[in-house]
């Protein structure tokens, strides 16, 4: 472990900060200019595409869950206060003679599963609107959305006397994560208010215009992704460093955090802080328990690490189905309220995302201090460097490994929980999907190096979110894995790794 080289990590953070400052002016200048093309692309039928009070509903619909074979169209009707209006009737027509009428509710977007991908036209029946909330003069009663398999095409009608804009442009289909079976709602950060800054594009890259504002927005999303990924993969790397095992069940520890958080906060109604702490505590207990019940006995027997790896695959399969048993097969949301957007430095993310990023950063810094400044942290590094030598100097490797398991599972749970909160929805396959990105991150940074995991994670996060701009969004996770393979070709020990480890 190269924890004795924190200067590199600091230098990197400085570089990132410098880059951020350098990019900021370009971004701040661009927002007004780029609201129009985005709106044009999304909504060609309406003449009024200038100033828009864009309001994209980011809820996953209640009665249609997009999956591998289903595409959904969802619609909300909002008044000028941003509240959803119930009992409005919207007719959805589309290819193949599809024709269905839905009635909106105040709780969630009304949605319907559509048989084919393609463009759908939504027509609002003005007679069904409440008396005080009619469409503004001259507003179109029609919106168009594109439905994609594995995603929800969303549309929002804006009504009410004072609404300046006739209606908001329809949202392009928010593709659920590229695995499709994962269901992370990457569109959470796209909720925009007022000036319509940097609506993060989803869908086909070729359909939208390139702008620096988007790059900056995706950069912010990438940092968010990277910080949460770092928090999760540090545990993976620590376990690898101290025991030599590639733990394939680590992804499930991450998903377990989201799943238990969902049960505690959403279903049992605890507050975020109580439920979150409880979730982390329970997950840390699973770490202690599995070390005591499985890993320590196996280490005592001198089981080779490859065998341990396959045992962890078995554990991963088991935990996957345990999670499925706990939360079911569909996509779930920890917080059911609409996320409130917050714009900092020209990047619009939900408020919970900003809080998650801050928490992740504090945890990462705290962890770095733990590794470099405390006795136990130094013992951890000693064990991961050379267990035999460490135990000869009076360190108890079993105790260190136990602490490592507690930290690894607790950090994974925290990351999973914050992921579930700030990325919208998740499902039981979240773990495996993320596990490969974690492996990519730690390999990129250097297997077994604590700060390597951080650097690698941020890079992977940026690659995943920025690649959105040039390739289709359903392939963005693949881009991270392509990078992993390229790294192994060029520099197999990773950015911060040492040559002798790759043997």
């Amino acid at each position, binding site marked *: 472990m190269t924890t004795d080289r924190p200067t590199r990590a600091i230098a990197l953070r400085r570089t990132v900060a410098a880059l951020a400052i350098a990019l900021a002016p370009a971004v701040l200048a661009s927002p007004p200019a780029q609201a129009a093309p985005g709106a044009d692309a999304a909504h060609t039928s309406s003449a009024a595409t200038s100033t828009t009070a864009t309001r994209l509903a980011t809820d996953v619909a209640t009665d249609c869950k997009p999956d591998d074979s289903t595409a959904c169209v969802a619609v909300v009707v909002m008044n000028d206060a941003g509240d959803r209006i119930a009992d409005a009737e919207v007719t959805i027509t589309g290819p193949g003679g599809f024709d269905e009428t839905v009635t909106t509710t105040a709780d969630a977007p009304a949605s319907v599963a559509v048989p084919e991908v393609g463009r759908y036209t939504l027509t609002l029946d003005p007679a069904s609107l409440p008396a005080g909330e009619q469409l503004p003069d001259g507003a179109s009663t029609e919106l168009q959305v594109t439905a994609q398999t594995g995603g929800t095409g969303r549309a929002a009608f804006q009504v009410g006397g004072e609404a300046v804009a006739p209606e908001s442009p329809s949202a392009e289909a928010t593709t659920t994560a590229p695995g499709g079976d994962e269901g992370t709602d990457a569109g959470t950060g796209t909720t925009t208010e007022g000036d319509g800054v940097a609506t993060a594009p989803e869908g086909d890259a070729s359909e939208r215009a390139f702008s620096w504002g988007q790059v900056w927005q995706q950069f912010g999303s990438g940092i968010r992704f990277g910080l949460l990924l770092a928090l999760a993969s540090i545990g993976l790397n620590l376990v690898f460093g101290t025991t030599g095992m590639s733990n394939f069940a680590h992804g499930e520890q991450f998903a377990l955090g989201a799943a238990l958080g969902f049960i505690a906060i959403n279903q049992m109604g605890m507050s975020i802080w109580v439920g979150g702490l409880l979730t982390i505590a329970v997950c840390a207990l699973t770490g202690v328990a599995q070390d005591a019940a499985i890993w320590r006995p196996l280490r005592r027997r001198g089981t080779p690490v*490859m065998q341990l790896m396959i045992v962890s695959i078995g*554990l991963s*399969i088991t935990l996957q*189905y*345990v999670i499925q048993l706990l939360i079911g097969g569909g996509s779930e949301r920890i917080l059911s309220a609409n996320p409130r957007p917050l714009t900092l430095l020209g990047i619009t993310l939900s408020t919970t995302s900003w809080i998650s990023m801050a928490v992740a950063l504090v945890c990462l810094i705290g962890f770095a201090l733990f590794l470099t400044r405390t006795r136990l942290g130094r013992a951890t590094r000693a064990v991961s460097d050379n267990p035999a030598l460490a135990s000869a100097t009076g360190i108890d490797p079993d105790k260190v490994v136990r602490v490592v398991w507690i930290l690894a599972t607790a950090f994974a749970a925290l990351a999973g929980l914050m992921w579930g909160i700030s990325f919208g929805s998740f499902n039981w396959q979240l773990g495996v999907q993320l596990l*490969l990105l974690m492996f990519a991150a730690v390999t990129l940074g250097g297997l077994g190096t604590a700060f390597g995991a951080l650097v690698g994670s941020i890079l992977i996060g940026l690659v995943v979110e920025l690649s959105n701009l040039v390739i289709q969004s359903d392939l963005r*996770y693949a881009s991270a*894995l392509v990078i992993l393979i390229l790294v*192994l070709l060029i520099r197999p020990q990773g950015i911060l790794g040492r040559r002798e480890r790759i043997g």
Partner: protein
Amino acid sequence: MDEFLRILTQSLAELIAPTTAAYALAAIGLNLHFGYTGLLNMGQAGFMLLGAYGFGIATIAGAPFFLALLVALVAGLIFALLLGIPTLQLRGDYLAIVTISAAEIIRWIGRSTWLQEWTGGASGLQGRNYKGTFQDLSPLPDGRTVIGPLEYINTGSDSWWTRIFAWGVVALALLFVWLVTRSPWGRVLKGIREDEDAVRALGKNVYSYKLQSLVLGGMLGALGGVLYVLPITIAPDAMGRTMTFFVWTVLLLGGAATVFGPVLGAMIFFGAYMFMRTGMRALSENTGVGDVISTTNVEQIGGMLVGITLMLLVIFRPQGILGNKKELAFNVR
């Protein structure tokens, strides 16, 4: 009692099902990788999916059956070269991470809208579009045949012809593996598994042998993928990580580094898996158990039991049913 007989028949039918043959063939390929050479290939499903796509797309493009099979094999070969060249010089778990990632990349590309024109996107390719050339080859007369408790049509998707062909391919693959592992070439592979440096000291090119093993096993995996999709459809999401892990369970259950291990493992695994699921479903539907375990939970509990089986197997009997503990590749890096 009728119910029990039905469950038993279903489980027995699973022993000779084409899917079982497909998994057996994929496990035979993995056996070359892991059992004989000691390579940790965690992406066998990627080879299978590529084989299936190669076969399906070639057939839809108008290729005759055997040319399409060749395309599937070549797809497996190229994929193995792409994976092997960068990673085989590195430590074992790098290959594991790279293969599992590469298999996922294949699946993501397959299900993305990018190549939808050829791959059919997330919904995949329909069976009727590529089964024609295979079913035209059938020498069996029309109609249905009953053998014991099993009854299938002679030619069609879920037919005797599919079963005969699938198990015929498995038998050929067994013969091939048996011959090849008895040859001097096979002994070098086992030498690499036991002690790479010793083999290198004898002047053998370890890297090249590993690559050859990866290619051969990968081509068997691609062929397994073709067998897998012959009775059903090509659906990328059905051929993901879970499939790889099932292939591993099959191999470790039967016994790595044995010729018949993969076949025995596949039969026992799928027979028991089917018995367990249909049994639990019947219990859940007909008795008081249903209040505790709903029918939707049966799949989940089945999956959990597979995971637990894999863990217990690796901890307590890593050599599987037929294997020899001395011939186990876990000890080498």
